[in-house]
């Protein structure tokens, strides 16, 4: 069975390591914070100017001055800190953040990512995504393998305007984990019950499939 959004987040959470500072993008990436493995400590950075983000507030305790980059009301953990946007992107561009998790509309086999614009139809802007992908050493893209029409979003070449070039190294979708290496996608794991054949059929880009593809272990 293909994973739902929470399943994707849960699998990405397994990639977290103790002591990391992590930036989570809007959408599926935000859910990763709900599945931090036991026994490790990570700090979440939000590019609007906070380190040490806590959970959402209880009803009635929302604070208009305290939001994340998705404009959602949040709380802070002990030891949290606020800063301005230039300092925030100094942390990101200066590679002080160990992991960035973000969404995408398309990725290509050389690691390009498109996520901010559909010409003539939708223009939301890139927000902080171009800064994040240009500098982060460790980027995980969280996305659905196909669009609503069932077409692959894992492509030989992106068709939409790019957010960054050659920057994506790992992708976690509802069907699989892929790595991007040497201009090709490499199948690393498959979602529980999802066949290699299905993943191959739904991947437009060149996909290297090893003899044995393990199933994700989610529990």
């Amino acid at each position, binding site marked *: 069975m293909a994973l739902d959004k929470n399943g994707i987040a849960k699998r990405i959470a397994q990639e977290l390591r103790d002591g990391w500072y992590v930036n989570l993008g809007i959408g599926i990436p935000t859910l990763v914070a709900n599945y931090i493995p036991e026994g490790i400590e990570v700090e979440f950075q939000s590019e609007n100017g906070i380190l040490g983000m806590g959970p959402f507030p209880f*009803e009635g305790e*929302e604070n208009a001055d305290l939001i994340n980059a998705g404009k959602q009301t949040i709380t802070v953990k002990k030891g949290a800190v606020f800063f301005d946007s230039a300092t925030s992107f100094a942390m990101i561009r200066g590679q002080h953040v160990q992991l960035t998790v973000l969404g995408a509309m398309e990725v290509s086999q050389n690691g390009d990512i498109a996520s901010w614009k559909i010409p003539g139809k939708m223009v939301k802007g*890139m927000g902080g995504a*171009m*800064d994040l992908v240009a500098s982060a050493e460790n980027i995980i893209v969280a996305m659905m393998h196909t669009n609503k029409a069932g077409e692959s979003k894992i492509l030989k070449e992106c068709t939409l305007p790019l957010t960054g070039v050659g920057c994506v190294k790992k992708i976690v979708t509802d069907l699989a984990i892929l790595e991007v290496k040497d201009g090709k996608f490499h199948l690393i794991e498959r979602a529980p019950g999802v066949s290699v054949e299905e993943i191959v059929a739904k991947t437009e880009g060149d996909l290297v499939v090893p003899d044995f593809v393990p199933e994700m272990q989610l529990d």
Partner: protein
Amino acid sequence: MNKVVKNVEEALKGIEDGMTLMVGGFGLCGIPENSIAELVKKGTKNLTCISNNAGVDDFGLGLLLQGKQIKKMVASYVGENAEFERQMLSGELEVDLIPQGSLAERCRAGGAGIPAFYTPTGYGTEVAEGKEVRVYNGKPHILEEALTADFAIVKAWKGDTEGNLIYKETARNFNPMMAMAGKITIAEVEELVPAGELDPNFIHTPGIFVQRIFQGEKFEKRIEQRTTRKRD
């Protein structure tokens, strides 16, 4: 030096049609609400607004868009505003979308006397079109130029009569850099106190960057995405 003006009308004196304004805030958080309301009242037109976002349809800079007061918008993310998207796709509104970190740094550079800088952000994308590329440490970077404005309008939590400012929580965001980059910087604050009452150790924006300060009449502080969790 006393920077206090008596109200928002006086604070915004000199803002004319066709000028470039920087407006602080991230989403609706930390925006100068009172000044925006006054700009709507004044009806100033053909403005170029530099701000991370464009508000929502009926609040923040969205109010200026409704009245077609903005000719050009410079921002990083505009996804929350349907009227904005309509005006942009129809070509009524000029739009320059800038990566958020580059926007922040371009404002900072503008205030810090640095005319341009190289950044890896945006290389190989539309953002890099027409910009100089240079390789540092084996990686291509693009040249981004500083931004300044005729007026910068920022919002702070507390300010003193000298123009020293302290922001609250994530309402700081773009305000400090924009305060630096305005030829004239206007600060609207929730609480205006006499010089000496703010601890100099904890001031975020030194008053040298601020020319006019006033206490806002009221702050609605609208929440864009009210998100909560259940009590156990």
